[in-house]
């Protein structure tokens, strides 16, 4: 269980509040207008922002004092998911050891996930030599290798075209299934929410609503979401 207990955050007159629980293994879309607090929600769970009050707990353990890199969390950002000066293999290897002193077994694991995301033979290339879709695959390969129980995605595929995005969502689904991950994915696109997540969290003006079934929410949206969707 991922528990957000009485989370409160004040920033420049913006008030953020969340109080909810998420089942392990759930796939949840996070949707809402720009500036409503979607990224804030992910940043607090990921440990990049400390709440003024309340706590984040995973399986009953309070994460407040745990640094971002030691939380049971993998994070995919909007961009800058790869270090441009490191090779694909190194970028993925960081998921196993942040100092990259990998043993032979670990190096084999890296090659293995590279093959699994369809990038065989590319481990010595640098990110700039890859297409946008391939770069997303590299980031997903690292998620697969780290196999953390919580996966947070902040619109990581927003820059990809529709076909590529669908492909990435499918790959993401496979990886989430294989690692039993609880997934929270911020998205601007209701279609992403429908295709990937059976439940959706609506964030509106700093208020985080509990997860609701995606289809119901999108078919009879509350006023804030309706305005956002343009209905």
């Amino acid at each position: 269980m991922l528990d957000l207990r009485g989370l409160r955050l004040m920033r420049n007159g913006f008030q953020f509040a969340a109080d909810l629980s998420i089942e392990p293994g759930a796939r949840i879309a996070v949707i809402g207008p720009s500036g409503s607090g979607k990224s804030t929600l992910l940043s607090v769970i990921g440990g990049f922002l400390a709440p003024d009050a309340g706590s984040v707990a995973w399986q009953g353990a309070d994460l407040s004092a745990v640094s971002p890199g030691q939380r049971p969390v993998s994070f995919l950002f909007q961009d800058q998911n790869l270090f441009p000066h490191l090779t694909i293999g190194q970028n993925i290897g960081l998921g196993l050891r942040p100092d990259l002193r990998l043993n032979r077994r670990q190096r084999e694991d890296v090659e293995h996930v590279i093959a699994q995301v369809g990038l065989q033979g590319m481990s010595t290339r640098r990110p700039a030599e890859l297409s946008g879709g391939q770069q997303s695959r590299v980031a997903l390969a690292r998620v697969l290798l780290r196999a953390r129980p919580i996966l947070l995605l902040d619109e990581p595929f927003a820059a990809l075209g529709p076909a590529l995005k669908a492909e990435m969502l499918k790959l993401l689904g496979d990886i989430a299934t294989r690692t039993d991950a609880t997934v929270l994915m911020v998205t601007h696109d209701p279609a992403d929410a429908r295709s990937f997540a059976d439940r959706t969290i609506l964030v509106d003006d700093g208020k985080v609503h509990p997860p609701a079934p995606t289809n119901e929410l999108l078919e009879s949206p509350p006023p804030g979401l309706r305005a956002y969707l343009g209905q």
Partner: protein
Amino acid sequence: MASGVLALRRDAAGIAVAAALAALILGTLAAVAWQARGLSALQSWDWRAVWFTIWQAALSAALSAGLAVPVARAFARRRFPGRALLVTLLGAPFILPVIVAIMGLIAVFGRTGAINEALRAVGIGEFSVYGWQGVVLAHVFFNLPLSIRLILQGWQSIPVERFRLADSLGFGPADTARHLEWPMLRGVLPGIWLAVFLVCLTSFTVALALGGGPAATTVELAIYQAFRFDFDLGRAAALGLVQIALSLGALVLSRRMATAVAFGTGLDLAHGPVGPRGWRRAMDAVAILAAALFLLCPIGAVILQGLPRIPDLPTEVWAATLRSICMALISASIAAALCLALALTIAKTSNGWLEAAGMLPLVASPLVLGTGLFIMLRAHVAIDDLALPVTALINAVMALPFGLRALIPAARSLRADYGRLADSLNMTGLARLRLLTLPRLAAPLGFSTGLAAALAMGDLGVIALFATDQPTLPLKLYQLMNSYRMTDASACAVLLMSISFALFWLFDRGGRLA
């Protein structure tokens, strides 16, 4: 709370550097102030030095900024082969050892130089390179290129659309000057004047070699003389207080004005205003040619005189060379480490106090720091043992503000771009330094380290104060000059200049290739 302690521990390096820097500089200043016990030790001679320091700096700054205007305008509106190279060369005086330039100026403007030969030939009196006019001449030599680059930047900051609009409205050159160029110059010139004024305020080497006497002694030189010849620590300290007050005053003044950055980039622009034809074209050519001759002839003269002599240099010169290179490398390493630790913490915490600590060296002058360190350490260490370590340390500290200017913006964008990714992957400590920080900051770090190495290599400030039987190369050069062994001194100058440029090039290039 726990995370607060954790965060503090991770920022410890930067905070420790800032604290050490503040302790070093404020501590030495306190030692100077305590030793001085007010300004009563100052005699009328010393007040003349204060007055000379101010007016020569004001005059040097006005001449540098004023003469730079026509040259910068010529560079802005003309395109010719070699233009990019010339503009790049204008950045070189920043790392040219002062004593080398002085050798060059003596070669050209000295008694037997080309200028005086010509003056004698036409029957006009001689120009003496010694005295106040020599001091001002040398300051213009160093600061004219800097001013040209900064004004050129101002010119390039005028959108090219404005010039096109001016053309379409049928503006003549006078109209363009009035509506586009003068407003820009009014904006940039005060800042440039002040930047040069600040540099000339703490001038030591130039005054040491070309000035002196009642009419041409700067405060820095007076500190040196009080310390070295009169061994009057109280007076040296009182002069140090005056020097600090002067620097502080100028810094406060510069806070109120938008000051120009220390070294302009001013490179190429593909588009730009089209220069007017006719006599203005000839005038621009004269401006560029005159500036180029003024800057290149002295260096060329030193090279011509010194290069053939290098193989015959006495062994003690080679010993001094080796000593200088070691000292410069140590100094540059200290500067790089301090700069990196400070820049990373400043980028992370955006703490104004830390940034202020990094800029503290601008308040202190090398001679004031040297005097203060001597006052604090004289009871514990022999003066001869102090010379090289203190020189390495002070040069590292003095290079910090310039290094930080290059490194802080880079560290900030590194943090903005990859900070969260590295945090989320738990990259900390040495692993983060090795895999992320050093590779990504290699270019600005290489530039800063190269700058520090070149400045330390060419420095003749603190080492002259402590002058020992173990001279550095610039001090050796100065000693050769003083014993009128000018050919040997020229050879030394060529050597010193080559090594300074080579050190800068090696680090800068190495950083960009990494």
